[in-house]
Every structure is written in structure tokens, then in C-alpha cells.
């Protein structure tokens, strides 16, 4: 793995004013290496989703900066940020947010369209185990299958960073493990850096890098030397 692909420096963010002011991020510092599987762990309100959104360029910090490959996001204007997301990021959300009147293959093509260097759509479908469902519409799929499509839409871009916001939050135990295994596979196979936000402590065991957040600051920043595969996870 290369050194310092993503750098977070003294990141602060608050919402509201006066008495209602709430400091969500209170000076956060860490770095992530390229190809790393990084898990941001913390309870509700610890600022992990806000942090992910700032890294994804869809939210802005009050101070501090995010730098990817040496490019600071705060120096980018709106269209540069759009290009940054387009070329470097893949997003997976807790809710799958698929386009209802496009089928599985087409939903994945929505991601491929954005990339200059997309992966082969059929190959991604096959990796995701969706060959038998590729002409189905989202409302004909189970939650797990929809999340697979959502992952497919993100990884087909061949992004530098795969951002996952509680990807298993709405799924059952078994399906969650399958989805995590899939993300793990993609990380290995396509070499994307993965930043995953979760409140599930067990998931930290499959990560290379575990950052624990609480009250808007980094409490632990650990490299996991003994990571296990997603299927071995238990919770």
C-alpha cells in the first residue's frame, strides 16, 4: 500500500447557532492509505456520516481540510467538486436509492456512464451474483439484491475511493455478511480504497484501518494486523 492517499487535517464542523449550536466534528486528524479498507466506527451522533459527506465533497467543513492525492477539496469550486466525485468516488448508502424505472443492468450503467475508465458491466454483475436478475426492476428485488446493485453502481466506475454509509444498516444478518463480503471482494479485486461508516463494532475486524469516533473527535486510530474475512464476522 502507498503512503497517505487521503489526509484529514483538523476538520471542524458544527450545526446551528447560539444555544442550539452543536459541534459535530471538533478537530479531526487522520490519514488513509491507498487501497486500504478503512472503517469509521462510532455511535449515533459521533459525526461519522458528516465526516464521510465532507470526504465525499457533498458537505463542507467549517475549518480544516480534506486532501486527496494532494488535492485539497476546499480549494475546489462546485463544478470541480462534481468532477472530483465523478472521477474518484463511488457511493453506497444505507438506502439503495436505485432508479425505479431502470433495470439492474441499466442502474449499474448509470455508474459506468460517469467514468472514463469503467469496469466491464457484465463482469461486475457476475461478481455481484446478479446474472439472473439483470433485467429485473428494483421493486422486483429483495433488499440485499438492491444493495448489491447499489454497490455495483458504485464500483463499476472503478473509483479511487468507495464510500459506504452504513451499507448493511437496513439488512438482516446473513445478507449483511454477504454484502460486506462483496465490498471486501471488490476492494481486493479492483483495488479501491474503501471508507465505510458503521456503528457495528464487529465490522472493524475485517478492516485494515479502524478509526473510532466519539463526540466529534478520533478516539482510536488503529491499524488492524489481524483482519478476518467478512464471512468470519459474528455479531
Amino acid at each position, binding site marked *: 500500500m502507498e503512503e497517505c492517499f487521503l489526509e484529514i487535517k483538523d476538520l471542524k464542523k458544527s450545526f446551528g447557532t447560539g444555544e442550539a449550536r452543536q459541534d459535530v466534528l471538533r478537530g479531526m486528524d487522520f490519514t488513509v492509505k491507498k487501497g486500504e479498507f478503512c472503517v469509521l466506527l462510532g455511535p449515533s451522533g459521533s459525526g461519522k456520516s458528516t465526516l464521510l459527506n465532507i470526504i465525499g465533497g457533498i458537505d463542507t467543513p467549517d475549518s480544516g481540510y480534506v486532501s486527496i492525492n494532494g488535492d485539497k477539496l476546499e480549494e475546489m469550486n462546485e463544478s470541480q467538486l462534481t468532477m472530483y466525485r465523478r472521477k474518484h468516488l463511488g457511493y453506497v448508502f444505507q438506502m*439503495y436509492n436505485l432508479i425505479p*424505472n431502470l433495470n439492474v443492468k441499466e442502474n449499474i450503467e*448509470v*455508474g459506468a456512464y*460517469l467514468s472514463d475508465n469503467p469496469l466491464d458491466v457484465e463482469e461486475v454483475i457476475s461478481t455481484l451474483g446478479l446474472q439472473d436478475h439483470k433485467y429485473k426492476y428494483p421493486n422486483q428485488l429483495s433488499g440485499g439484491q438492491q444493495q448489491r446493485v447499489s454497490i455495483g453502481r458504485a464500483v463499476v466506475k472503478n473509483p479511487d475511493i468507495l464510500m459506504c454509509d452504513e451499507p448493511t444498516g437496513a439488512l438482516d444478518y446473513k445478507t449483511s455478511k454477504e454484502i460486506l463480503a462483496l465490498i471486501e471482494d471488490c476492494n481486493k479485486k479492483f483495488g479501491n480504497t474503501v471508507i465505510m461508516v458503521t456503528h457495528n463494532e464487529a465490522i472493524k475486524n475485517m478492516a485494515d484501518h479502524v478509526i473510532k469516533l466519539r463526540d466529534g473527535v478520533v478516539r482510536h486510530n488503529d491499524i488492524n494486523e489481524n483482519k478476518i474475512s467478512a464471512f468470519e464476522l459474528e455479531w
Partner: protein
Amino acid sequence: MKNPLIKRVPRELKSDWHKYLVIIVFMVVMIGVISGMYVGHDSMLAAVYEGRETLNLEDGHFELSKRASQSLLDDLSVGEMADVRQYYIDKGMKEADKEVAKAIEENLTEEVNNAIEEAVRAQCAAYGITDEEMIKAQVDAAIEENFDEAMKEARESDEFKKAVEEAYDEAHEEVTKTVNEEWDEVADRYSLNVTDFKPVPMTIYEHFYREEAEDYNNDGTEDANIRIYKSDSTIDMASFNEGRAPKLDTEIAIDRMHASNVGVKIGDKITVGGKEFEVVGLLSYANYLTLHEHNTDLMFDSFGFDVAMVTPEAFKRLTSRIHYNYAYQYETKPEDKVEQADYSERFLKALITQSLVHDNEIDDYLPEYLRQATNFAVSDIEGDSAATAILCYILIGVIAFIFAITISNTIDKEASVIGTLRASGYSKSELVVHYMTMPLIVTILGAIIGNVLGYTVFKDIAVNLYYESYSLPSCHAVWSNTAIIKTTVIPLILMFFINLYIIIKKLQLSPLRFLRHDLAKTKRTKARRLPRWSFLRRFRLRILFQNMPNYMVLAFGVIFIELMMCFAFGLPDSLNHYADNATSMMFTEYQYMLMDYRDDDGNVIETKEATAEKFSMKSLLYPKKKSTMRTGMGSGGDESVTVYGIADGSEYIKLGGTAGEGEVYVSSAFAKKFDLKTGDSITLNEEYENKSYSFKVAGEVEYDGSIAVFMPKENFDKAFNKKADEFSGFFSHHEITDIDEQSIATVITAEDITKVTTQLDHSLGGIIDIFKYALVILAAALIYLLAKIIIERNEHSISMVKILGFKNGEIGALYIVPTAIVVTIVAIIGFVAGYYLMLWIFKAFMMQMDGYFAFYLKPVSAVLSVVYLLVGYLFVSAIDYIRIKHIPMDVALKNVE
């Protein structure tokens, strides 16, 4: 790689086909009708303009009291003004010389006779003769013998020569003085004192006509007045829609529209001027596109008036008086209205002066650009195009807003997808393009299908609509650039910008806010407080507030449709009201206008009819502001006002008070048309003289029949310098039989009043009903689209309340009642606004026209115009209820898209 989002478009069309079908049908009909109107209009106008060239339309005409001499025609062709002053001086000198010579001769004769008599009497006295008879005999004998010699001597005397010279000088001086005085007045009246007069050279054509009684069903009674021209005329020629020009002296060709209205066909026999003719052609004269009998008529009359063509020989055989009408064409065509007006003014000066010096009189003069019969139809067609286009744009605007609301609703629904796409790197412009695709596709589809229908089906409808009203030449479809621009380009632009604005505004939010479904522009910190009503009422009110933008568009659409509804109900109502009240729009059953108040022998015309009452009448002009509405309709000049002098204690016109000198009562039509009130001052002008009369309005006479003012006859005589025994005609309850027909100019009956409404009813009758039903469908379609959006938006809540145990009926009451309330309220508001707008439009239109015609709406029509719309809404409600019933409960439970 193609943007995969494109694939959504056909699927969206397919899945929501009924919504898009309604919108497309709506647009196809709108665009089709307007395109049809334009193609119809352009084709029609092309045919009319072509006809003006090929059929040699006049630039104007004048009618003289007798046939013009060749020298008059020659002088008029040059266009120069005659030196009227010199003409009068020469004429006056000649007459004065004659008078002076006569006076001198008489004077001299008397003086010579007196001198001889004096000499004889002196001689007799010297001889002592006193017998007077003898003296007279001597005087006569002396005169007989010496008169010539004495006269000769007297004539040769210096004294006489001097006296004669003085008398001639004095007479000439008097003539010049009088002519100069008179000339100054005349010249001032007609602005003839111009130093830099530029003549308008022209070609003049003899275009005589006769007016005869037409009896088209040969039952012995007059059915119409027919104006007959000769078939060899080379000006204002006719095109034949059917048949041919007459070749035999027993053949006639008549106006197509008139023939169609009264049911005369080719081959039929009609009686004209007591002679039978076979109809061999149905024609359209270049100068009679509408059958306006007089240029000041409020409306043309294709039932009671006709124009025809016969052979020159047949024309000779007719017996009514020949109207010495001359048409002219300028050598250089005027380029615009301003130049037309300038040419016609200059020519009028030449005409007035030349006809005077050639001892002729002008009976009529009308430049073509002011002629209703040629311009009314063209102006109406052009005006209709403009009005239809405005209606079309308003409706397309409404559709664009419906689209915008639909899209805005879709964006709300797809907020998380949009958030994800934006987070994944889709740019705002890519999404704007995506959401703009559908409205543009629908508009293009609507425009293509609409235009195809416009060039085929709707064009014929438009053409037929005008063929039913006007005597237009045959036409063939021409390519209309205007149609393409107005029916394709403008709707596309409208649709594009309205949607672009709303979509850009909507997509302005950050991806994060889309992901969080946080789309409200302004955040209310607290929910709107509502009165302590029942839960269900408050629930409904919340629905109303939540869907405010939809209801705003709905209100706009419904108000617009109600405006149209007011027109659709009000026009036939106004026509019927006018026709029903025609008798009350007359002072009495018979109103006789006399040629003169004295008969040929100089005796004042009297009648034994007990109910007859004399009145005096005069026509003056009331200055009218130039209207910005359609030009070409109406006589184009000031309002013609009939001034009545009424007998004291008149049985027919009650003045309702006394009128002092300089005070008049105005007819209610006059008061309404020009907003006159008691105490106002009005100034009326003479048409061809520079004379004005000012009056104070003392009150109003309830009379909508015409623009008129009334005053006691005594005041009338004083104001207009009339003799006490002068009068213009009789009002009478019964027919007057003891006045020579030659002395009667016209008799006004109810039919004269109702001919306007008969014509309008015929022209518009059928189309108005279709228009009403089209409006109901339009209203239903509009409400359907907006109500659908409201229900779709609330699908989740509807599903949820179903789960909670609400029955379909209750849910229907929750979601349908707010729409019903809004529709009803805005329909009523729309109706009231429509009613007042129609009053205003009618009035503005009437300012352009001559005469007065008030807007009237029956109370039942007022109710119906709202009820019709509500009936349309009832159907939509039924569909909405079914839609609510079919919303499944799992919508609220599903987390999937």
C-alpha cells in the same frame, strides 16, 4: 456510452401514459386548432389579396348626383383642385352683368318714357288740354314715335356712359366681395386654402349600379335590397365560386353568401326589379367580402342585402334610378395607411372643387381603406388569429406549469435518487437536461401531430367558419410560416423556459439535502396554527396548504376557462337579448323619414293618421378616440349621432324633465358607450362643415337602439336654425297611408334593428355550442392533471391512513373535498371576473364599431357557466375516487423504490 437515464423517458411515457395522453391530446387540439386557423387564415388572406390584384379592386369611389361630364372626369383624373373662387367670380360677374344690364335698360326705358311724358304734358298744358284720356293718348303716341330716337340719344350721353360704368364697377366689386367671403367659409370648411397642393393622378372607371327589390322566392314581396352592377365592368370584378357570369339578358349572378343564406341555388329563378332572372353564377365581388349595405352599418347583412351582376343590356332594362358611381385607382399606390389617408384627403379636395365647377354634386365618397365591405372580413380574420394565438399561449403556459409541477413532484419523489446521482458525480446540467426531456418531447409530439391536423382537418374547419360568414373567394392551402412559428416555436420556447426555470430552481439544492429529503425552500419552525375546527376539517386544510402551488395553477386554469365560458354563454345571450328587445329599441311601430317636409307643390306634408307625431332629426358626429383594437372594422370615423327634435309632451319619447336651451337628453346607449352623465358637456360636429354644437346633458332617455340625443323641437329649431314648420318625419302607431310614397325616404321597422343579430347568430351560432363543450373538456382535463398530481404526492399518506383504518369514502372526502372547494370557489371568482372582463371587452370593441350593442348574460347562463365546469369536475372526482381506492396499503410499508 449513451446516458442510461435516457432509457427512463419512454418508460415514463409508458407507465404514466394516461397523464401524457391527456397532455398530448390537449396540446394536439390546441396546436391543431391554432395551426388550422393560421393556415386557414393565411390561405384565405392569400386568396383575398390575390383577388384584389386580379379582380382589380378600386382604391376608392365616389357617387355623383348626375353623370359626370368627360371634362369633369378628365380633370379628376389629373387630380388637380379647381379654382372655385375664380369660378364663382366669373359666374357671379356674368350674372351681375346680366342683372346690371337689365337694370340699366329698365331704368333708361323708364327715364326716357318719363321725359317724353313730361314733354307731352307740358305741351298739352300749353294748349290748354286737360282731358286726361286725351293726354295719355298723346303720351302713348309720342312714346311710340320718339322712344327709339330718345333712347339712342340717352345712351350716347356722357352722363349715361359714366353711370353704366359705375354700376358695373359697383356690381363687380360686390360679386368679388361676396365670393371672397363665401369662399373663405367654404375653403375653411374643407381646408381648401392650400398653397402647396399636390395632385393625386388616378384612373377613373364608370361603375354605375342600380338598387332594386329582390324577391328570391317569387312570392311577390320584397325579400332583400339588391345592388346590381354590369358584367362588363373592368374594376371591382367578381370571382365565381360556382357557375359563371351572365351571358343572356335574362341571367343574373348573385352573391354566394346571400344565396347560401336564403337558399338560392344555380338554376333558380328570382325576381329583381319586377323582372325574372335565372341565377347562373354565385360570385364574390372583390369589393364585397362582407355585405355591408352602408359603410356605417354596425354589421353586414347577408340576408337582407345582396350584390349582383347582369349583362349591360339587362342593366339598361331595369327601371330604378342609376347611381352614378365612379371607382378610381391611384396611379401610384399608397404605401401605407398614412399615405392612403393623405391621398384620399387630397383627392377629396379635387373632387369637391371639380364637381362644383362642373356643376355636379357629390352623393357619396369613400376611399377603399375605410370601406367596411372590403376590410371587415380581413380584419376579422387577422384579429381572430391574434386572439386564438393568445388563447393558445395561455393554455400552453398552463400546460407548461402543469408539467413543471409534475416534474417538481417527481423531483421530490426521486430526491434520494437525485442525491445519489449528484453524489456519484452527475452534474446539475445533466439532470436538468434529463428532466427537461419529457416536456420537450411531449411539446414536439403535440406540435407535429397538431400541425399535421392543422394543415388537413382544422384548416377546413377554419375556412368553412369564414365561408359561412363572408363572401370570400375560393382558396387553397398555402404554407404558413406564421403557423409554424406560432404553433411550434413559441410553444416550445414557452415550455422550455417555464420548465427550465422551475427545474433549475428545484435542482439548486445540495446533493446532501436531496439525500436527506430536505427540499423545502423555507423552513417553518412551527406548523401553521389552525382554528379549533374538527380534525377532518383541519386535515383538509393541511392538504390545501401542502398543495398550494397545484391549487394556484388550478385556479389560474379554471379562472381562464370561466372567462371563456362567460364569452360562450354571453354572446348568444346578448344576441337574443338584443333581438328580443328590438321592438323596445324603437320609439314606435312605424317611424317615417320624409324626403322633405314639403311636397312637390311646396305644401307642408300632413297626415290624417291620429297617432302620427312630427319630429325633427339631424345627423352629427361625436368625436371618438382612435382605438387600438382591430382596424378596418367600423366606418373608421367619428361616432354618428342622431339628434332628435321632439314635440312638446311627445307620446313616443319621454324626456323625463325639462330641457333648457343648450340642454339635451342622451340615449342610454350613448350614455353607456361614452360614459356620459347628467351635467356633462358634449360637442357634436357637422360632417362636412366646420360647425360645432355644444350641449349640456340634462338627463338620459332609456333607449338602446342607437346613439342619439333628444331635445324639444323648439330648441332643435333654434340650435340648427330651422323654421318652426320644418320637420323630418312622423312617429306613428299605425301605418300612414295618406302620404305619397315619393315623399317617404324610409320607414324603420323592427326588422332593421334585428338584422345585426340575425347575421351574428348565423355566423356564430353553431360554433359557440362546440366551444362550450370544448371548454368543459378542457376544464376536466386540466383538473384531472392537477388532481392526479395531488393524489400521487399523497400516495404514501393515503396508504398510511388506509392502514390506520380510514375507509375509502372518508379518504376520498379528505383528498377530494379540498379540490372541490377550490374548484367551486375559483369557478365563481372566475365567472365574476369573466363577466366584468366581457363587459369591458364588449365596450372596447364597440368603441371601434359604429352604434351600440351591450353585453348581456341571463341569470340562468351565469349559473350554467359554473355548473358546466363543475359537471366536468364531477367526472374527474369519480376518476380520483377510483384512483384513491386502488392505492395499495403496502405503499406506506415499502422501503424500496
